[in-house]
């Protein structure tokens, strides 16, 4: 078992940080008037952990008896969709974004099915079932619209817990029907505490201070990542001594390489080289948004102050266009060329006027 899973808190009182939040969840669960909820916050902050803990608080250890189902749905166009569903007696967990544009079908079918069946277990602590919808921010508009009425109509039989990275892509009616709970990323100190706890529980020996610092800094508030890194470190250097190098994900290293290449040279040949690298990243299924973000961050580190804003500005613009378009590589390269051009202009101290209206 991976540490990230093994030492995951099971109950609200085991949670290491955000004490106040835990307290509130606890009282909510006890009140018997449990609302729909929307957990949001950055990746690796502990949203799912908190959801699981809350469920346990609501229903007791029975929620941990899980079974996995693969359900088949039929789209209106007779296409078959496979959806993986994790459920216990008291709750059901699904990720509708797995099926892309057809998420509406899944939402409608499953929610109705659950909403229309009563809780059969007489010993259950609550009269309702809970539906957890992961990656709620990638739900299509149709699916969200399908959700909003269901949420009110079947309130007596079920509660919905949405889990999202940000609320910006959720429609307002949904947000207004939920209790919004923000799970912020842990700060460095909290993360270090958790790492130490993991190290202690795993009998992995004391984690050197610098190493812990490095891990915390690199993982940027992502607890899951921190623990994964720690485990990788422990596996690669079992005694945790000597000079420790904290592993970075390979795609990140590669993106940084691309960023450096952009700044080193601005020639047609280099454009082609960068393109090849971008293709390589894309073929490893790294989301293009992440690519442009990581590369831009790297590029910004290496340029003059006056250019930073521009580079980020264009990165944002091209990222936005990329979402509308279909060929990601065009937009990535367009940004790369733009940055090269900006950099050249800056380098030759050329007139920048008229550049903004250049297109």
């Amino acid at each position: 078992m991976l540490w990230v899973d093994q030492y995951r808190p099971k109950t609200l009182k085991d949670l290491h940080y955000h004490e106040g939040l835990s307290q509130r969840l606890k009282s909510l669960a006890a009140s018997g008037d449990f609302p729909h909820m929307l957990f949001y916050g950055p990746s690796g902050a502990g949203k799912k952990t908190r959801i699981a803990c809350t469920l346990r608080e609501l229903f007791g250890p029975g929620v941990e008896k899980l079974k996995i189902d693969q359900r088949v749905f039929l789209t209106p166009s007779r296409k078959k969709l496979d959806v993986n569903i994790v459920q216990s007696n008291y709750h059901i967990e699904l990720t509708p974004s797995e099926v892309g544009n057809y998420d509406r079908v899944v939402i409608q079918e499953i929610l109705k099915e659950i909403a229309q069946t009563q809780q059969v277990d007489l010993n259950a602590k609550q009269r309702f079932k809970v539906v957890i919808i992961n990656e709620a921010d990638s739900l299509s508009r149709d699916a969200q619209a399908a959700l909003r009425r269901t949420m009110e109509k079947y309130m007596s039989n079920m509660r919905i817990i949405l889990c999202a990275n940000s609320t910006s892509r959720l429609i307002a009616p949904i947000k207004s029907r939920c209790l919004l709970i923000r799970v912020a990323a842990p700060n460095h100190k909290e993360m270090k505490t958790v790492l130490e706890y993991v190290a202690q529980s795993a009998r992995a020996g004391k984690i050197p201070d610098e190493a812990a610092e490095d891990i915390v800094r690199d993982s940027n508030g992502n607890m899951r990542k921190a623990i994964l890194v720690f485990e990788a470190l422990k596996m690669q250097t079992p005694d945790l001594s000597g000079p420790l190098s904290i592993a970075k994900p390979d795609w990140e290293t590669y993106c940084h390489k691309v960023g450096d290449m952009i700044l080193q040279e601005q020639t047609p040949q280099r454009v082609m080289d960068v393109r090849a690298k971008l293709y390589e990243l894309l073929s490893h299924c790294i989301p293009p948004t992440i690519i442009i973000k990581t590369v831009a961050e790297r590029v910004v580190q290496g340029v003059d102050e006056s250019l930073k804003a521009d580079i980020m500005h264009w990165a944002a613009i091209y990222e936005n266009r990329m979402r509308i378009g279909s060929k990601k590589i065009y937009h990535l390269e367009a940004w790369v060329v733009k940055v090269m051009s900006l950099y050249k202009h800056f380098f030759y101290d050329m007139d920048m006027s008229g550049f903004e209206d250049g297109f």
Partner: protein
Amino acid sequence: MLSSTPGILLPDVLLEVPTRGGAEDGYDAFVPNGLLNSTPRDLSPSLQASPSTEVSHSRQSSHSGSKTGDLYLGLELVPNGLLGEPSSKQDVPPSSPSPEPFRPNGLLSQSQDEELPDIADLLRPYARTTAHASGSSAGISTAPIVLPRSSLRAHTYAGQPVFLRRRARQKIGVVQPVRESQRMGNLLDVPIHRLLDHLSVNTARKLAKEDDDDPATASSATEDSLWVDRYRPKRFTELLGDERVHREVLGWVKEWDHCVFGKSKTKGKKRARDGEETNLLQEDALHRPQEKILLLSGPPGLGKTTLAHVIARQAGYAVFEINASDARTGQVVDDRIRPALESGFAVGSSKPVLIVIDEIDGATGDNASGFIHKLIQLTWEKTSKGRGKKRDDKGKRPLRRPIICICNDLYASSLAKLRPIARIVRFTRPTDVHIVKRLREICELEAVHADTRALSTLVGVTRGDLRGCLNTLQFIKARNQEVTEHVIRTATAGMKEADSNYLSVLNDFFSPMSKKRVKERGLGELDEQKYIDRLSRAADATGALDRIALGCFEHYANTHQHDATFARYVKANEWLVAYDVLSGSLRAEREYAILPYLSYSLVAFYPLFQERGGHRVERPKADWENHVKTQANQEVYKSLARAVRTGHGRTSGNYRHLIGDQIMRLELAPYINRIISPPIRPVNSQVIRPEEKAILSRLVNIMVSLELRFVQEKGEDGQLMYRLDPPIDVFVTYDGKRAADIVVSRYAVRHLVAFEIDAQLIARQADAVERTQTRKASSFFGASRREARGDDNGDGALEPADEPRRKRAKAGPAVDIADQPAVDFFGRPIVPTTTGGPSKLHSAPAQSEKPYRVSFRFSEGSSAAVRKHAKVSSFL
């Protein structure tokens, strides 16, 4: 006027004489020719006749200018008078004097100047071509000249003489063009009066023939019919294209002769053709060919339909045609084809019928398959019926007439069933040379001036489509144009567009128009500069805008434009992005109204990057390669996700939060690779150090719970190696290199790990089995539990070696279900002797009555700690 044309000798110039003369008598002089020309059916004689008469006439006229003017006038008057009274057709034979003056004149001229042989030479090609094109073979009159004997003598390889009898040919009542020209050559050999006789007889015949035909239809046909119809081959020998194909088709049709016409006709021939085939044919009671349907396939305009018709006629059939204009449903087979086949003869004809189903691949729609199905049924259901006919006469009659199906696309899905049972003949385009030759002949017949280059261009543009060529030519002629390359290009503009290829368009984007093409299109300096319309239209015509965009994207950085500040590149990329955004919203929102504007965003590459003599644009391929790679990697991700998920199910771990797309790609994939590659020395698991052992067992644990394996494989060099499965190590491999901080575990290590994983898996499996078995223990024999124990032997690897043995020793006796009455599978109580059968250690049944028991609990080690009831007696 007469004196103005003294020295003219060339026929084409001579043709102009009357018009140039302008005078009435000059015009009249041409009228007899017109008369001869108007023969509707056979163009060749008229054409043949007209030059000759003209030549003689011109010769005469050139003469008469100097000498015999009066004679000339007299000559002109006679035919005029004749023409003036068309009603008196009987006068035609008496009109024989009309050509009379021609000949003497010709002879006179011959005697004076030396040019006459030249003219004969000039005329020879006409004669030859007409003879070929019209195909009216030499008549009786030629026979004595060319082949004086009535039989030919030949020798076989064995040296035996063979006599080939000359078949008497059909008489054709038309003047023979060949003879005309030949006679021109040795004009002096034949006495003048005989020549004159011939000529008069011919004219008479021709006129008589005209009489027979309906004059109205005859004349209108010449003017209105399409050239395609006019020059459609009427005989087998006139067919253009691959002889072998024609022969094959004819051969197939001939194979039916036995069935259709009875034995006498072709039996010997068939045998001679192919012995083996004959044997096969013998099996068929009706001596039909093995395949009852012939399927002709090939691109349009090569003459498939013509071939079918010509061959049907050649073989003596009447054609019954079903084509795209008819509904093609199963119904049609029943209503039309079947009756035609069963009667065996076309309506109002004594010839047997041959069914031609044209454009069979166009039979789409709901009923198309029904049509084909019925057709097939027709052939082989009937074959069986045909045999069975002797048994019951009520069955439908077997297929007795050939069926020819014609299609363009042999691999159309609707033909899938037909293909295996039909004899397939593929049409290929004839060589360009042949087509050009045929076209030139036709052009000459139609008096269209066409140079060979123009014609070969035409053939190239239409890709050998004869029908297309002829239609184009006729169109050009209708506009009174000369056939030049330029005219052809304009006339076939549409055709050319259709076959334009996206690569050539892409090249146009990056290079200016060549001088040649500018000239061809007749563009001025200013027009040449205009590119937007030209390029956008070309791009739209290809219908592959996405590929053009890709091509632009992949190529633009290869151009040599100087671009210090990347302004060009930025612009180009802006256009590409605009294109992508447009096409993205076109697809996402189904806004197809945007479609016409798409190409304009790509045209911008022309002003930015066009250069003379740049690199040729390659077929864009990087994107495709990337796509393939992405697909492969996505598969790996999927299998990893699946493994994690099912692993979760088995270990009741909670990995599900790890399989979100982003999380898995960005966090799990890179780190899991590091986690599963700890530094382990390749040593035997027995002598391993305790701390390493801990790592090893942890590694095995993780890999098992994530369902990762090492799979043994043979490498390319034949060496054994262990591969990670699913191959998640691709995610730390960029540019073909693995991340530096991950040690590549050696074969021995992997071997060790793989071994441990297998052991662990077996242990778990046994564990699971055990658990379920204990649960059901009450209803099972003790023996089944022992079997489960037997499985446990495998898990020794992880446990101290002596442990399983001890366990077995202790657990063995416990198999006895002491305190419960023995029941069989169905829960019925059973006799102890059968119960105890499998157990050797089974004690006497009396023991079960003892009131006390000792419970022994064993809970140590990682494997199944089973609680079982055991009796003290078994330990004693």
